[in-house]
């Protein structure tokens, strides 16, 4: 943990112990953002002491800590990332199953994707299941897929092109 000592304040900002992994950092960051992005029951009662500006400043510091820790983990755990990167670079054709596989490799819970991308979880589930019948019209679905791909650090154009191809084919076959 020695190399982590200089990052103590950032782990503390995300209310994590020094030994937390990137998974936890990522989750804590999403949680902190959720807590402080809007006024909540918890912050309302101290509104006179903790105003709009304070909240924005705090959000900025949370974001900064997350960026610094992300950088730290990128440097210190290249093994995991590069394996996934190598694998994803070989995929040229994306369906729901491929997206799900990449997501699992990155250990990102679906709820995190939903929270960050603001794509409703139900739609993400349907995207992963290739459940075209339950997905909204193409223009929306494409937007969801792009956001999802970005969240997984995939090439959004490539993912959207191959995913939508299958979606349209299904539409044609089912006469809609």
């Amino acid at each position, binding site marked *: 943990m020695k190399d982590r000592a200089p990052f103590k304040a950032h782990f503390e900002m995300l209310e994590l112990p020094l030994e937390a992994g990137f998974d936890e950092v990522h989750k804590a960051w999403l949680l*902190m953002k959720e807590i402080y992005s809007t006024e909540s029951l*918890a912050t309302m*009662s*101290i509104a006179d002491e903790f105003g709009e500006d304070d909240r924005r400043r705090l959000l900025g510091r949370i974001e900064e800590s997350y960026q610094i820790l992300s950088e730290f983990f990128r440097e210190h755990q290249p093994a995991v990332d590069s394996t996934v990167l190598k694998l994803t670079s070989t995929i040229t054709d994306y369906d729901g199953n491929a997206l799900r596989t990449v997501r699992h490799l990155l250990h990102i819970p679906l709820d995190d994707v939903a*929270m960050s991308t603001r794509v409703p979880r139900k739609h993400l589930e349907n995207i992963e299941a290739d459940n075209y019948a339950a997905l909204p019209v193409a223009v929306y679905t494409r937007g969801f897929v792009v956001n999802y791909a970005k969240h997984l650090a995939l090439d959004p154009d490539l993912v959207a092109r191959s995913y939508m191809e299958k979606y349209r084919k299904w539409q044609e076959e089912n006469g809609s």
Partner: protein
Amino acid sequence: MSSGPEKKGVIMAVGGGKGGVGKSFVMASLGMSLARQGRVVMIDGDLGGANLHNFLGISRPASSLTDFFERKVPLADLVVSSGIANLGLLTGMVGTIGAEAIKHAQKQKLFNQIRKLDADYILIDLGAGTHFNTIDTLLIADKMIIVITPEIVSIENMYNFLRNLYFRRLGGVLSDHGYRELVVNTWRDRDVLGIANFRELVDCLKALSPEVEMIIEEELRDFAVHLVLNKARTNQDIMTGNSVKSVCVKFFGVNALYSGYVEHDELVSRSVNQRTPYLTAYPASRCSRAIERLTVNLLSGQQVKVTR
């Protein structure tokens, strides 16, 4: 910290906040849960309106803390059986004496005898409000528990209570080191010193001298409150516990742990009216399982895991 070599029971106390948030229900259930693994004595320290016995499904015991204060009966002799194995009860009193009326010497004697009670776990249920006798009693606990509900009034009350609790501890600690009145005086001069809030007060005190800073850092390092969110109905309610915890840490600079939440259950009041402890009546309910998780978390220092 401990004065003698004898094995001490873990003292857990709940206090503060608002009346009606479910302190007594949470404490009674926690006591029953702990009684499965060790000897428990529960003290109903709600001196104005003792009602813990109701949650254990028994009538008000004949002996009470009144006997300790007025007839000098040793505390250990006043513990009665609760009808539940391993669980003794020491009840408060109703109407005769309030927390305000207790003298300093009596209080010290009470604390000493509480510490010496022969039990693995000693649970103290305190009344609502921020009287300093309530706060001092909470401060003797190894685990200080604050129960909140996902309502603004309860949360605001809790922050206020936490301020008082930390303030009192801070004052006590600095007094012990010869800095009598420092906290009170600094707060009194807050306008001159440019102190707008609680956090700034602590920062200002630390800036006064390296010694004061060291005392605060050292003595208050282990200061932690355990938050329990009661009457949760939705996931968002459960999340409120995370938010409140975060505000305690970030805004008040007070170490808070989100130790557990308990779902709202209409059957709680029914079980009280039927004189059956909730945990006995509905052992497999969500609430009962939540109490079990809370027990584990309190003992281990774990917190509610964020699941979304």
